């Protein structure tokens, strides 16, 4: 069997004690472009943030290449949503791409020539080299997105997790990003993308995780992109689930009883 890039095991995550992901369980192959797809508020970003260790699960766990995140950090790259940062920050394009070279073990060291070379290459790949010294506040939405992707490329990882990279970008950027993703895939990299647009999902991805608080389906797109499954994800037939969620949140029920443990079995 092919190596698993990501394994999500019985994951439950809540926000202000309201469950956003409920018992989600799937694993993803390597060397594919994977879409995490679902309607607004279906927990896609939470999924990505939990995999990246930015949110703590109430129960369950996630693994990357069969190991906990901390063991494989340098092989993982993360592209947050473009709107999640203040683009008025005093920095130019190069400054931001260089952040992709920051590591725990070089935090107190100056940026090296090698870092600069790698950042320059990354900028070249997203076609922004001529903008290297442009203020980030002066970039268009599509250019900002490409800066984020360049920063991620500068990490030189094996797996890339991107949160809505196609939102608010122009058609040319969309094509350029897609082209880049395919090149990355051809080099054996795994790319996982949170995406909300059904229209394009079928065209962009090899493998799809269909999410709506719980897992609707996960698998090669031919198997997942069926009318029934899409309706299940987008059809809003989960009233029972959301009512239960509200109840748990307002009545302060624990999501798991404190005695209940479900961690990865020790090897």
């Amino acid at each position, binding site marked *: 069997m092919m190596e698993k890039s990501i394994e999500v095991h019985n994951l439950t995550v809540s926000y202000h004690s309201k469950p956003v992901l409920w018992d989600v369980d799937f694993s993803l192959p390597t060397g594919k472009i994977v879409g995490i797809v679902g309607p607004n508020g279906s927990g896609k970003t939470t999924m990505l943030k939990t995999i*990246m260790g930015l949110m703590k699960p109430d129960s369950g766990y996630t693994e990357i290449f069969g190991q906990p995140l901390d063991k494989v950090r*340098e092989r993982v790259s993360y592209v*947050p949503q473009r709107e999640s*940062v203040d683009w008025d*920050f*005093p920095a130019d394009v190069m400054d931001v791409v260089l952040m992709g070279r920051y590591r*725990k073990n070089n*935090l*107190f060291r100056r940026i090296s020539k090698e870092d600069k070379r790698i950042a320059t290459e990354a900028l070249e790949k997203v076609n922004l080299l001529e903008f290297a010294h442009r203020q980030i506040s002066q970039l268009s939405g599509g250019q900002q997105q490409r800066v984020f992707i360049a920063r991620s490329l500068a990490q030189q990882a094996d797996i890339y997790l991107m949160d809505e990279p196609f939102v608010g970008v122009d058609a040319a950027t969309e094509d350029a990003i897609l082209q880049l993703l395919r090149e990355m895939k051809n080099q054996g990299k795994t790319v996982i993308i949170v995406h909300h647009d059904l229209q394009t999902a079928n065209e962009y991805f090899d493998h799809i995780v269909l999410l709506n608080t719980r897992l609707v389906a996960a698998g090669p797109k031919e198997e997942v992109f069926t009318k029934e499954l899409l309706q299940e994800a987008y059809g809003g037939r989960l009233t029972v689930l959301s009512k239960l969620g509200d109840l748990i949140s307002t009545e302060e029920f624990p999501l798991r009883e404190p005695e209940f443990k479900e961690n990865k079995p020790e090897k």
Partner: protein
Amino acid sequence: MDPIFLKVLVGTTLLASSAAVVGAFSYLKGQSLVGDAIAHALLPGVVLAFLLGDGRNPIFLIVGALISGLIAHYGIGYIHSRTKLKSDTAVSLVLSTFFGFGIMLMSLIQRSGQGQQAGLERYLLGKAAAITMDDVYVFSALAVILMVGVGLFYKGFQLMTFNEDFASAIGLPVPLIRFTFTVLTVLAITIGIQTVGVVLMAALLITPSAAARAWTKSLPSMLLLAAVFAASSAITGTYISSAIPKMPTGPWVVLVLAFFGFGSLIFAPEKGWLAKRRRAMANQNKTVRENVLKLMYQQEERNEVSVVLSAENMLSIRVMRPEKLRNALRDLKRRLLVVEHGSGYALTELGRSEGRRVVRLHRLWELYLTERLGMAADHIHPGAETMEHVITPEIEELLVKELGNPELDPHQSPIPYEEV
């Protein structure tokens, strides 16, 4: 030079510039008020240190302040993450509780007759003139710690401020970075309030950065400029207060800083108020010039011959302020877009091409509005009157491409392209 003056000068300059450098990150994070809250929250620690030990020992007071400030800072974070309260609510909650507690402790001291009020009042309103030689040594040491700390943690602070999630995602020790930042902030505030007091401390942290941000676009130069603004304010403030009898130093430092702040908002290039006014004026003039060219081009289009129009003719065709028109005609003449013929004006070839461009943009935009945005033909003219002056050559190219090289606008007027 007067040794007291010199002590005050060195002390205030050191602390103002180091507070500015640390405060820059709070400013960029949009947490300008956190510094204010922490400054208030130091009071209980300071009073307790005063109660337990020697009130005039700066080290003792600094440790007390540090503990109190750290508790307050983590309290704000804890309340924010564990409740649904917004962060400004958490900040004011902690600020008022700690400050109230501090005041209460203070009145206890007063009642117990321990008397030495000078040390405490100093924390409320600041008293730069009371800086001792010991203070100067401590301030210098702290200033060095602050500068070295920011230098060492520069990458961490930069990434924490710009994109904390990314910092966590790549495995940087974000809790350590935050803790260091908080300790540096509390230290800066602790020495800062000795000159300007709790109430004015926020100004010392935030104003230099707000001023510096208007002039520069890179973080290192912003930090440097903030420190320079703060140091100059400290020097000027100290000088004023020593030159005029009975003038307090702290308020003067803050006032001079405010002067830098407002000055920057007005005079800074690009972002300053004046620069914006200038751009607006330039665009207004450009609009009038282009309207004149368009008007002349349309007359030629209608009559199919080149025309000579006087200013009065133009005013009878289009409503314009006469003095604006006069200026526009003078500019157009200088730019060789029109030439004078007797008492009237005629288009040059250059001017004709420019007039054609404006008419073309107008009609392209009208077509875009009807075709792409589904607007009715009788609603599109006003929008096009504006857009014809805004659309750049790149956008024009996009428009032409997207509309498929159209020939006619929605009113069936031809879209005039440049003949190749």
